[in-house]
């Protein structure tokens, strides 16, 4: 094969970037995991033998949802800034994304504190408790991992190590963040709208 002369084909042969395809595959796998937890949640709705029910104890987290979904918009702006080369803008929007995500996590933690200590709902209380904490907890875990990744990028940025050529990779990371937000849309609908 080494004797084959180079044709124009090599120059025009363009395949999708690896990182993006890899991230899509990861998102597919994670989506499959979340689907199973959502199915379990829906299946067990109304089947708790005792203990608090969703209607009794769940408050719709409107503010937290707005924060989390806005963070998708802010991260999108951040990536666009980076691609344009406006680094200061990128740093600011990225930080804002991180803050919005943190507010979401803290808010979730506060809701759990109230549920556990005030309403007596733990993961072992009943089927609702088990499925609720598992599903929301799995999502919160993914938010935490996302925040960690965002923090690392923020750190690199503050050290002056983020340049335009990193835009593609950071864009791929933002795909993960968008996925986390999309999962929240599903979880919110299932837990707080359908399930109550």
């Amino acid at each position, binding site marked *: 094969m080494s004797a084959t002369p180079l044709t124009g*084909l090599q120059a025009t042969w363009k395949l999708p970037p690896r990182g993006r395809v890899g991230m899509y595959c990861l998102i597919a796998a994670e989506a499959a995991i979340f689907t*199973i937890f959502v199915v379990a949640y829906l299946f067990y709705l109304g089947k708790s033998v005792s203990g608090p029910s969703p209607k009794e104890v769940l408050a719709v987290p409107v503010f937290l949802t707005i924060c989390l979904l806005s963070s998708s918009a802010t991260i999108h702006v951040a990536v666009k800034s980076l691609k344009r080369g406006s680094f200061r803008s990128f740093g600011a929007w990225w930080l804002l994304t991180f803050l919005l995500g943190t507010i979401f996590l803290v808010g979730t933690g506060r809701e759990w504190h109230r549920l556990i200590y005030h309403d007596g709902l733990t993961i072992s209380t009943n089927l609702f408790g088990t499925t609720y904490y598992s599903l929301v907890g799995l999502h919160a875990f993914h938010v935490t991992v996302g925040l960690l990744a965002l923090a690392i990028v923020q750190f690199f940025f503050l050290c002056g190590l983020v340049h335009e050529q990193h835009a593609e990779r950071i864009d791929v990371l933002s795909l993960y963040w968008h996925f986390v937000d999309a999962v929240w849309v599903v979880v919110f609908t299932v837990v707080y709208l359908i399930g109550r």
Partner: protein
Amino acid sequence: MATDSLALYPTQTTSRRPLVDQLHAWITTVDHKRLGILYVLYGLLMFGVGGTEATIMRLQLLRPHNDFVSPQVFNRMFTMHGTTMIFFVAMPLVFGFANYLVPLMIGARDMAFPRLNAFSFWMTAFGGLLLYFSFLGGGGLYGAGSAPDVGWFAYAPLTSQTFSVGHSTDFWTLALLVSGFGSIGTAINVIATVVCMRCPGMTLGKMPLFVWISSVMGVLVILAVSPLTAAQVMLLVDRYLGGHFFDTQAGGSAAIWMHFFWIFGHPEVYVLVLPAFAIVSEVVPVFSRKAIFGYPVMVAATIAIAFISMSVWAHHMFTIGMTSNANTFFVLSTMAIAVPTGIKIFNWLGTMWGGKLEFRMPMLFCIGFLFQFLIGGLTGVMQAAAPFDWHLANSYFVVAHFHYVIVGAILFAIFGGVYYWFPKVTGKLLSERLGKFHFWLFFIGFHLTFDFMHVPGLLGMPRRIYTYEPGRGWDTWNLIVTVGVFFQAAGALAFALNLLWSYFCGNRAGNDPWDAWTLEWSLPSPPPAYNFSVIPEVRSRRPLWDLKHPEDPDWKYE
């Protein structure tokens, strides 16, 4: 990096690096070829372990009311045998093949994510070690633990803390969780490699079937292993956080574990069999001297199989009391999957038809595959018919069926693949003589064991029993089944000897010992670490056929 390839030649006269350095190179490698070899070696090693467990079981079942092992040990044996063979033999073997061959076949220099590749292998390897550590570390309350004894599908509520004290079940759960991450990593890698790293000219319609099938397998792993991961997290929540996912006393459902498990479990068997199809689709054309018959339909059938396989899972649950409507649906979907599967057999037949068949070792195993997959597939169709399955499920008929497909089809194809690609990997040909011993001993043993195993199932013998009553007509059949094990062991021994002997003393293979047509055969045997010095360009599905037959190239007809 150049020295890495030299390490594969045992007889090089240039100065050899110290052993510690060589081991270090293997342990830290990110080269897809080395990782592929590690996967296959790991799988073969665990095959010996799993085979030993099977031998212990068959010795116990040699005759009724035998006391070779206690019921507790026997129950651990069938759990470990199933878990080992599926997760730590078959999956590593197919991942190993994919890892080694996919980049070579598409003209790439490595997989898309080499470090993820290494991580995935070591996760799988450690998962296996974790599973086996259970023999030492599983003891819990009242010393009740040891290796898991809940069956490889670990039905709830047998796995709850109530019925499985100690940590044996946790070792099962964690080992599979860990190796599951490795599997998903490999799947992501294979898909990204195939989508993003094909050489110029290799459109999706010009990839070798092996590459097509490997990427479909990757998609299935992503969609199937994830539900298992989710279910196992739920099981851990139940066992350690007081959760009630599968706690029937709290309103939970034992059936939902079955659904989640089989949503994994059924696509899983296609994850295992698709690579067998991939190997056969490469070997049969070369040894029939003809292109594969009906390439586009083979691709379409593969995709159809993968798609339908996500909808058949509850045919493992025909006896649990689903509604007649649910049973009906799963009968339909399961029978439907038989159509694209059958089509593949016909296409392989069409490939051989009108060709010039050479019965070298790879082809011998693939022909064994064809007959045995035909039979195994048909016993599957029998079980798809739910009313028949109300007898056959959970009996030795099922055990015979799935071993027929996993051993008779998948393992035979893997053996064929080893004989086919061993020369490329090592530069040496495997001995045909030892190969024939391997094939015939294993073939006789396989048929003694698994043909006759169907009969006790038809005579009412359930599975997973450590002993059985005399007077049910099962005795003689069980004896014959056990005798077959020793022939298979002898065949496996011949195989191991062949691998060792040929590696050191086999004939040199050269680049292209089989006169084949895909890109890996254009490279030296073994290939250099970087694979291709110049990235090739292709115009058809068989680039080397075009080179060897410039007057009649494939791209004129595709």
